[in-house]
């Protein structure tokens, strides 16, 4: 399954005949970097109006670079160059706000140099995994459209400040709490030791069943006690917070698919939990004993 590693809004430029001039094409688009099902890194340009992939380039580590075109007086034109060929692809940044251009470019180049190092990270206002038509109108300030949740710049700023306090050992939280919480429930309030302990107590067989999901070198036997210790650990709490924050960006469609959930599950915490309810029901249904739901 293709996994999107990076996405941001960008349009294309085309060479004028055989000259050295390039002209910007106004079509709204986005650059996506994906780990393809073939195990290779794909550099994709997607038309945001039609949602069609119009360019799909396979990149080998270290072969390509994404560089600023210094001759461009406008300053937001970039070129994808290959060391193995003379191919050139030109792009222009379409995010209304130019302040993050350098971050995007830095991330692209890091990923091009080593496909394994860049964390999931998306441009605000563009969800590469939303199926519908263009979900990002030119005025990128609009909150949400077509049912897909979009993080506003303010929210992203908040996420950034929260993430920056997550810090080592999950000792953050304090400063995060002091900033305004987005009006969405938190996964950390769902996966609390208080909620999980009764589950483990009622179903001790879970210790064996869940153990394959824990580190193989965990120096502790597969017992309910170990499970309780794990779910109370700062490392687990930090991981839950991390996933919670990631879900709040509304951009985890690609990631949740790897869990057998529909893309819609990746647009927020509640949709994620709803999709899990459905998945549980389906699995119970497959097992033959239908659950009596109201």
């Amino acid at each position: 399954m293709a996994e999107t590693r990076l996405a941001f809004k960008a349009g294309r430029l085309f060479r004028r005949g055989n000259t050295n001039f390039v002209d910007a094409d106004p079509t709204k688009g986005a650059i996506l970097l994906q780990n393809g099902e073939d195990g290779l890194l794909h550099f994709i340009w997607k038309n945001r109006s039609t949602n069609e992939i119009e360019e799909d380039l396979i990149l080998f580590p270290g072969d390509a670079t994404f560089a600023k075109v210094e001759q461009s007086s406008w300053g937001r034109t970039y070129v994808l160059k290959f060391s193995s060929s003379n191919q050139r692809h030109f792009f222009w940044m379409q995010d209304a706000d130019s302040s993050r251009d350098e971050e995007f470019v830095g991330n692209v180049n890091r990923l091009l140099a080593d496909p394994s190092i860049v964390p999931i990270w998306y441009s605000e206002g563009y969800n590469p995994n939303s199926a519908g038509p263009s979900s990002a109108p030119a005025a990128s300030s609009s909150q949400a459209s077509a049912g897909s949740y979009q993080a506003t710049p303010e929210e992203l700023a908040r996420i950034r400040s929260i993430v920056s306090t997550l810090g080592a050992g999950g000792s953050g939280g304090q400063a995060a709490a002091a900033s305004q919480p987005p009006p969405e429930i938190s996964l950390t309030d769902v996966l609390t030791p208080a909620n999980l302990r009764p589950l483990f107590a009622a179903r001790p067989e879970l210790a064996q069943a869940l153990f394959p999901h824990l580190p193989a070198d965990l120096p502790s036997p597969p017992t309910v006690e170990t499970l309780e210790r794990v779910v109370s650990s700062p490392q687990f709490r930090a991981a839950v917070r991390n996933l919670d924050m990631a879900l709040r960006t509304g951009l985890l469609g690609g990631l949740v698919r790897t869990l057998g959930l529909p893309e819609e599950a990746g647009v927020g915490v509640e949709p994620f939990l709803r999709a899990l309810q459905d998945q549980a029901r389906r699995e119970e249904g497959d097992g033959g004993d239908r659950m009596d739901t109201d």
Partner: protein
Amino acid sequence: MSGDDDSSGWQLTESDPGVFTELLKTLGVPLVVDDLYSLDAEALAELQPVHALIFLFKWVGGESNEPSSGGQYDPEFPGFFAHQVVNNACATLAVMNAIGNIPGLKMGPQLSELLSFTAGMDPQTSGMAITSADWLREAHNALSPPSAISLEGLDLPKTTEDAYHFIVYIPYAGSVYELDGLKQAPVKHGVYSESGEGWVAKARDVIQARIATYPPGAVEFSLLAVHDDPLPRLQEQLAQLQAAGRQAEAGEVMMKLSNENAKRERWAFENSLRKHNYLGFIHALLLNMAKAGKLEAATEGARKALQERIERKKKGELMDED
């Protein structure tokens, strides 16, 4: 600041004694690292012999290029000193600056090769030599969480690690030195007396003077002590006391041993948890909650918790999410 390629594949790690100790183990160095909650003589005596103190603080930036108060640059420092040339490596760099200056230290072949390779290099080149050692980077990265659902990227270009800074204090040739990878040269803080507590007494004065230069509450800091692994010593003591029939003292040592072992067990447990990607586990937990009919109630509870947070926020109280 470009925020671009300054991490060079070095990932963020926690500044935790368990992480440092694991790193030392990988490097083949028989030392351990412990948190120091206090600089008083008693706390330090427990850990003797202490080979280095690592002072870790949230960097306030804009530090002057002057040597810290009371010290003087020593560009002729003959020991090991490397500059911090990439982000995220500073914890490991601090460890290197410490263990590169402990005479007669036992270490693994890769580390001793790297240290002799850097002999005679200037601090900048040493820093580059260290941070381009693939095996060292791997040892460092082995203790950072996997990036599958990491949001580190959102915090670019200024990563969390930028905000932290490590300074190492060591005894070297009769003087206390301060090794700060962001300063041009080691800072010499003058000679120490071998009697009594030895170098740590002088180091304490230097560190306390440094802390005093910050306005109260302006910086968060912690102190780590790099010291001999106490386990072999404790085991030996225990054997001797038991052989001599001194049961009461033997019991005390046994208590220390068991505390020490419990700490190692906790470190091993946490280090294992630290490297793990929890996505599958979280998914399985939630799925089982749903199957047990407990997910809806938990979701409802989370809604209440959210409401309460909003209410409290309205009242202007400071919230605490944990």
